[in-house]
């Protein structure tokens, strides 16, 4: 402290007031603690420089100093706190400065990086200056075939450890994106949160396939059921139902069960189409063989007649 103020400012003893002011400004711009929030030395140097300027910047005081009436310590400015002390502190002292803090310096990071997006959400904006909607949060969700047809509720685990209940509406399609409003990342400066975007992938079913709002199913039937007709049990997305197979049905015959397809928006359902496939018994049967061998009508019937024409 108390060094020669001319040396502190780096000016000659005969410098003009303008030169002194210019020298001070040049130093102060580099050393002002608020322009150097991370540099602790800057404060000491700045105190020295502004003390010197306090003395030499005032022509009258300067003259008294030159005459030796006051010493270099006589004019030191008491200054204990700077804005950076509030802006940089934690706890209550910080509260007053917090409203000025801005996240614009890294606002663009939030689009690309998850960790910084987290931090970004935690820095509150300055007044009305930055008010931004939070980023959307994308998810990929595998849904069972029947859950997609009938609707379901699924619980998602979020990266932050919380959970999100997702209602899967009946009849949802593969690749469809569910938008859960306000379930994305938090907004900035009072801005609304983003949305959770959930892309649905439907896992195929072993026996059902889907065609729009209809369900298709291949149903094995016995020769007796096909020839004589009968009642069989057929699986549908909502459980098995009984169906009558008409007498004389064939492989490839398509039967329709109304209202057992995919749930629609209006509350009704599509249909289930059942394609019959005749299955002979696994083992050769002598009685069947001898019957077919002596069956004239069966021999004269040509199922490939159309292919020949």
């Amino acid at each position, binding site marked *: 402290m108390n060094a020669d103020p001319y040396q502190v400012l780096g000016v000659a003893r005969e410098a003009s007031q303008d030169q002194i002011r210019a020298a001070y400004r040049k130093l102060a711009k580099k050393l002002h603690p608020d322009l150097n929030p991370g540099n602790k030395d800057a404060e000491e140097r700045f105190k020295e420089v502004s003390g010197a300027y306090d003395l030499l910047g005032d022509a009258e005081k300067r003259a008294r100093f030159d005459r030796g009436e006051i010493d270099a310590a006589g004019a030191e400015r008491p200054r204990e706190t700077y804005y950076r002390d509030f802006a940089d502190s934690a706890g209550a002292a910080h*509260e007053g*400065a917090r409203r000025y803090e801005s996240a614009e310096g890294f606002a663009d990071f939030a689009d690309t990086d998850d960790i910084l997006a987290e931090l970004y959400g935690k820095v509150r904006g300055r007044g009305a200056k930055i008010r931004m909607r939070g980023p959307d949060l994308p998810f990929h969700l595998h849904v069972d075939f029947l859950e997609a047809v009938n609707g379901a509720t699924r619980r998602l685990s979020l990266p932050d450890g919380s959970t999100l209940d997702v209602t899967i509406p009946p009849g949802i399609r593969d690749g469809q994106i569910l938008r859960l409003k306000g379930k994305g990342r938090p907004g900035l400066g009072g801005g609304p949160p983003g949305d959770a975007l959930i892309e649905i992938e439907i896992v195929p079913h072993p026996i059902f396939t889907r065609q729009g709002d209809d369900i298709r199913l291949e149903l094995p039937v016995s020769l007796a059921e096909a020839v004589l007709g009968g009642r069989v049990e057929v699986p549908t997305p909502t459980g098995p139902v009984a169906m009558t197979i008409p007498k004389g049905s064939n492989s490839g015959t398509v039967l329709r069960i109304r209202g057992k397809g995919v749930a629609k928006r209006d509350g009704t359902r599509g249909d289930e189409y059942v394609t019959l496939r005749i299955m002979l018994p696994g083992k050769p049967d002598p009685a069947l063989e001898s019957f077919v061998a002596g069956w004239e009508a069966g021999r004269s019937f040509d199922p490939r007649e159309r292919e020949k024409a």
Partner: protein
Amino acid sequence: MLEFEEFCFRARLEGGTLEAWIAAGWLIPAGTEPRRAFSEADLARAQLIQDLTRDLGVNDEGVAVILDLIDQLHGLRRSLKSLSAALGSLPPEARATIQRQLGAARQ
């Protein structure tokens, strides 16, 4: 918290100047007229603005730019602080991995 008059006195400011600073968004008092309140942080900020305008010869446009950059700087500093605190709480292997990555990114 300080009231308007008291704040002007402590900051050695004219009431009109303070009003202009508030209008420019340089200072944001808590509460609304007529019950506006100022914190010690606002006082330090007013002192900074005075340093800029009076001692450093910065004009009004310059003050706006500098305040905006300082506010961004403090936002960045705080984020960097919480980031390094979070990194500091990681197990040593994870920190070593991050250090390697940082070294690679710098090249």
